[in-house]
C-alpha cells in the first residue's frame, strides 16, 4: 500500500511537472525557430551581398588588368573584420615583432574590466598683482601667480550588481599650507564614494555614502565640467572653495510620473561643510531638498529651473538655512547642433544666527551670478559671467565681471582663458584684476555630459 502510494505521488509529480513545463518548452521552441529563421535569412543576405561584391570586384579587376595604365599605389585595406570570422593565419611581420607591446592592459575590446576608469586633470594658472599675491585674497587664495594642479581626479564608476551602481572619486590638488605662504602641498582626498540603489520600490532611487549633494544648479557640477575656470563668487562665499561637497549621508530622489520632468530629491547628511554648516553630526543633521523641472521649448530650446533649500547647524551651534533658485536656458542650432547659446543664473539666500558681543544676531545675506556662453562650433566658445554677492557672516559685498574664451581641440582636451575684475567693499575692500589660464584633459572614460 505504501509503495503503491509513493508511486502514485511520484506519477502525479511527474505529470504536474510535464503539464507545467509543456507550454514553456513550446514557447522556447518557437523562439528558437524564429531565431533560426532569422539567422538563415541573415546568412542568405550576407552570402548574396558578398557574392555580388566579389563579382563586382572581379569585373573591376578584369577591367583594370585589361588597361595598360600605370599601376596605382596599393590602398591600405579597410580595417574591416567580421566577428566570428576565422583568425588570421599570417605570420607576424618584422614590423609587427618590433612594435612595442602593451606591458599591461586593464581592459581590451569587449570591456573585460567590469567598471570604467577615468582620470581628469585640471590645471590653472592665476596671474594677478603683487598686492593680491601678498595679501592672499585672489580667487585662488594662496596660489596667486602660480600654475597649479587644481584637481587631478581618478574616477571609478560602474554597476555593482543588477540593483546598484557606484562611483568612487579620488582627487589630488594643490592647496596652500596654513601659516606658511611659500609652502604648498598636494593634498589627496576622497571626494566621492557612494552607491546608488536603482531598484527600490515606488520608483525611488537612493544613494548613500560620500557625495556631492543635489543642491542648486552649479553646485552639483564637478570642477572639470564647470562652465568657467572658477566657481561663481556667491557659491565660494557661501560654501567655501570646495562648495557643498563631500557630504556623508543618504539621498533619495524621484522623477514624477508626469509628462513634464519634475525631480524631487531629499538628503540627510552629517553636515561637514565648515563654511556653512559644520556641526558634523547626525544628531543635528544637514537636510537638503531640491525640486528641478525642465521644459523643452520650441524645436531647439530647453529651460531648466530649480529650487533648493539646505538647513543645518553651524560649527558654532547655530542654525543656518540656505535657499537657492536657479535657471538655465539653452538654445541649440539645427543641423550640426551649433551654435549653442546658454543663459544661466542662480541666486542664493542665507539665513543664519551668528555670535556677536551683544548676543546672537540673525543675519540675512544674498548673492547671485548670471552668465551667457556662445559656442560657435565644437571647438570655440566665448562667454561672460557677472557676480554679485554679500558675505555670509561679515559686512561686505563684492561684484565681478569675467569674460572668457574656450578652445576644445577634442572632446577630451580643453583650454580656457578668463579675465576677472572684482570690486569688493566692506571687509573685502579691494579692486582686483586676475587672468586665469586653464588646461583640462580627460583620460579614459568620462560620464556623459548633462544639460
Amino acid at each position: 500500500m505504501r509503495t503503491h502510494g509513493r508511486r502514485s505521488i511520484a506519477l502525479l509529480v511527474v505529470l504536474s511537472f510535464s503539464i507545467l513545463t509543456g507550454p514553456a518548452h513550446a514557447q522556447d521552441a518557437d523562439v528558437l525557430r524564429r531565431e533560426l529563421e532569422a539567422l538563415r535569412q541573415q546568412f542568405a543576405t550576407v552570402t548574396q551581398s558578398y557574392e555580388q561584391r566579389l563579382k563586382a570586384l572581379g569585373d573591376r579587376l578584369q577591367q583594370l588588368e585589361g588597361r595598360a595604365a600605370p599601376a596605382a599605389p596599393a590602398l591600405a585595406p579597410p580595417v574591416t573584420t567580421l566577428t566570428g570570422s576565422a583568425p588570421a593565419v599570417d605570420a607576424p611581420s618584422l614590423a609587427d615583432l618590433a612594435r612595442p607591446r602593451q606591458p599591461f592592459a586593464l581592459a581590451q575590446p569587449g570591456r573585460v574590466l567590469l567598471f570604467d576608469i577615468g582620470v581628469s586633470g585640471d590645471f590653472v594658472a592665476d596671474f594677478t598683482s603683487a598686492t593680491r599675491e601678498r595679501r592672499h585674497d585672489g580667487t585662488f587664495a594662496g596660489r596667486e601667480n602660480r600654475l597649479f594642479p587644481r584637481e587631478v581626479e581618478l574616477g571609478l564608476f560602474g554597476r555593482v550588481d543588477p540593483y546598484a551602481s557606484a562611483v568612487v572619486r579620488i582627487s589630488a590638488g594643490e592647496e596652500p599650507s596654513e601659516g606658511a605662504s611659500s609652502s604648498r602641498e598636494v593634498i589627496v582626498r576622497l571626494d566621492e564614494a557612494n552607491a546608488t540603489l536603482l531598484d527600490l520600490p515606488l520608483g525611488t532611487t537612493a544613494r548613500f555614502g560620500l557625495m556631492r549633494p543635489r543642491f542648486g544648479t552649479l553646485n552639483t557640477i564637478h570642477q572639470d565640467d564647470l562652465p568657467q575656470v572658477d566657481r561663481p563668487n556667491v557659491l565660494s562665499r557661501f560654501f567655501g572653495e570646495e562648495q557643498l561637497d563631500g557630504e556623508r549621508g543618504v539621498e533619495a530622489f524621484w522623477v514624477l510620473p508626469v509628462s513634464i520632468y519634475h525631480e524631487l530629491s531629499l538628503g540627510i547628511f552629517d553636515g561637514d561643510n565648515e563654511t556653512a554648516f559644520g556641526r558634523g553630526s547626525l544628531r543635528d543633521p544637514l537636510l537638503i531638498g531640491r525640486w528641478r523641472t525642465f521644459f523643452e521649448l520650441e524645436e531647439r530650446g530647453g529651460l531648466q529651473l530649480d529650487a533648493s533649500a539646505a538647513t543645518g547647524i553651524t560649527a558654532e551651534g547655530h542654525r543656518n538655512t540656505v535657499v537657492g533658485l536657479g535657471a538655465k536656458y539653452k538654445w541649440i542650432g539645427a543641423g550640426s547642433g551649433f551654435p549653442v547659446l546658454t543663459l544661466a543664473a542662480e541666486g542664493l539666500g542665507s539665513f543664519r544666527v551668528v555670535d556677536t558681543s551683544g548676543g546672537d544676531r540673525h543675519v540675512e545675506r544674498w548673492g547671485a551670478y548670471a552668465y551667457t556662453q556662445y559656442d560657435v562650433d565644437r571647438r570655440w566658445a566665448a562667454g561672460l559671467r557677472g557676480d554679485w554677492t554679500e558675505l555670509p557672516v561679515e559686512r561686505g559685498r563684492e561684484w565681478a565681471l569675467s569674460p572668457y574664451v574656450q578652445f576644445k581641440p577634442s572632446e577630451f582636451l580643453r583650454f580656457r582663458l578668463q579675465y576677472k575684475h572684482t570690486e569688493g567693499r566692506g571687509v573685502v575692500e579691494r579692486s582686483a584684476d586676475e587672468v586665469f589660464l586653464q588646461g583640462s584633459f580627460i583620460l579614459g572614460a568620462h560620464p556623459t555630459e548633462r544639460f
Partner: protein
Amino acid sequence: MRPFGRPLLCALAILALVATATAPPGAPAQSRLRVLATLPDLWAISRAIVGDLGEVQVATRPGQNPHDLEIRPSQIVLVKRAEILVRNGLDEDSWIDPVIESSGNPRLLRGAPGVVEAVRGLSILKVRTGLIDRSLGDVHPSGNPHFTLDPGTLPVVTANIVAGLGRLRPDLAERLEANRRAFLDEVAVAGRRWSDALASYRGASLVSYHDSWPYFYRAFGLEELGVIEDRPGVPPSPQHLVTLIRQMREQRTKVVLVESWYPTDTAAAVARAAGARVLVLPQSPGAVKGTDTYIAHMDFLVSALAKALGD
C-alpha cells in the same frame, strides 16, 4: 526629539508623501505597448513593428548627432514612462545608461528583460583590434554601430525587437510577428528598387566625412576609399587630407558624403581639390521632412546618391 528636530520629521513626511504619490501605475499587462528607442533608425523600425499596438518614442531628435549627445532631463521622463527600451547595443547610445539610472525605472537597466539590443546576432564591421586608445580619436571599440543602413540586417534586428517585445507581452507576439513580416516584405520590395537604382554604380569609390556608411556600402556594392575624419571627433590632419585627395583623384571618386550634423567646410575643400562633389545626407530617419519611416529614409539616401553619382 530635540536633536533631530522638526526639520527631520517634516523631511520624512515629505519623503513618504512623495514616495506614495510617485508610485508607478498599476500592472501594464493589457495596456498599449510603451516603447522607447534610443536612436531614430531604431524608432522607425520599431514603429513599423509595433504599429497600432502601442506608441514608440525616441530619445534623440532626428538629425541630432548621437556621438556627443548631451543628456536632457526630458529624456529622463521618456525613460520613466517606457516599459521597453530598444537600443543599438554598441557604443552609439551608451549615453542612455545614466539617463536610465536617473529615471527610477529599473525595468530598463542593462540586462533587464525590458531591454532589447538590436545588434544581437549581427556580424559587426570594423571591430577594432590591437591597441586602442584616444590617439585613435573617440573610436567605437565594439565596432561600427550604423548597421541599420544595410537593409540585409533588418531580419535580425526586427527579430530581436519582436523577441524583446514578445517577452514582455506574449499576448501580442503573433501580431508583432505579423507586422514584422509585412515590414520585411515591404523592405524586400524596396530593396530591389534600391539595388536597381545603384546597380550601375557598383564598385564606385566613395569618401565620407565620418565613418557612418560601411554597412550601406556593403549593401549596395560600393567601395569605401576613405574617411575624412580618420580619427573620430578629432579634426583631420593636413597630411591625411593630402593623401586622401591624391587617392580620390587616382580613383576618380565623384562624391564625398557628409552626415548632416557635421560641418561641410573641410569636406567641401577636399571635394574641390579632388574634383568631386559634396553630398550632405541625413544619417537617420526623420531628419528630412517626409523621411520618418525606414523605407522613406533609405529611398531618400539611395536616390540622392544615385543622382550625385550619375551627374
